[in-house]
């Protein structure tokens, strides 16, 4: 294989995943949270594809496609929620939306 071996790709995937986690936990706007979630999902995809290359079978890539489809549906529903919240004039701030407080 030309270029870096698979572990390098996996490292990138791990770092990206960490970045996405920090973004989810740190930002208050639900839009940015969704974006960070996308980063995490993509990191997972990269790991899947990397492993698929390391095994030499394409099943990992099939799974990556499935993840992509699910991510797309999740974004669709999430954005719909955000638009509904905006229409109801709720503050777009995950700290404000804490009615599940015990």
């Amino acid at each position, binding site marked *: 294989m030309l270029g870096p*071996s698979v572990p390098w790709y996996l490292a990138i995937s791990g770092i990206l995943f960490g970045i996405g986690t920090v973004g989810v936990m740190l930002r208050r706007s639900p839009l940015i949270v969704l974006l960070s979630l996308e980063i995490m999902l993509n990191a997972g995809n990269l790991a899947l594809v990397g492993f698929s290359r390391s095994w030499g079978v394409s099943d990992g890539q099939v799974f990556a496609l499935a993840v992509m489809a699910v991510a797309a549906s999740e974004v669709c529903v999430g954005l719909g929620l*955000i638009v509904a919240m905006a229409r109801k004039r709720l503050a777009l701030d995950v700290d404000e939306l804490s009615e599940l407080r015990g």
Partner: protein
Amino acid sequence: MGNFLVWVIWIGAASGCLASGVAVISFTNPFYSALALIGNLASLAVLYLLVSAEFVAAAQVLVYAGAVMVMFLFVIAYLGGRADAPWAGGPRWLRLSAVVAGVALMAEVVVALLWKSDRLNDSPKIDSTFGSPAEIGRLLLTDHLLAFEITSIVLLVAAVGGVVLGIQAREPDAD
């Protein structure tokens, strides 16, 4: 020469990935964050190509950068200024531990790779069917048919959910 080139491209794509990732979580304006994400997705597509996963790379650009990000941009444009929530806030311990947890995750992955990556260093030889649409299609329709069908149901549910959320929002002041 080929190897060197691949390395260069790899470093470029990887740094672009990481930089755009950091940019996504750093910008205050969500529009800029979304654009940074598009950059991220593009970099990832390049990385996919470097591992010979062509179909996934193509799907990434088409689906993610093409469809999902467009949806995002539409919503951000629609919400406009109202989506500008401040960057930080909430309890200090939360912020601190968020950063710590994230860094820990990254560190952990790196450590795990350095420690246990003996088996991963040798990648088998692959032929031209690896990552080709024909191969992916064959796998989708034979070995992973169930996943394929379930994914289609998930997409259906999401479509219905999106419509429902949209319809509810369309009766604004009737409550």
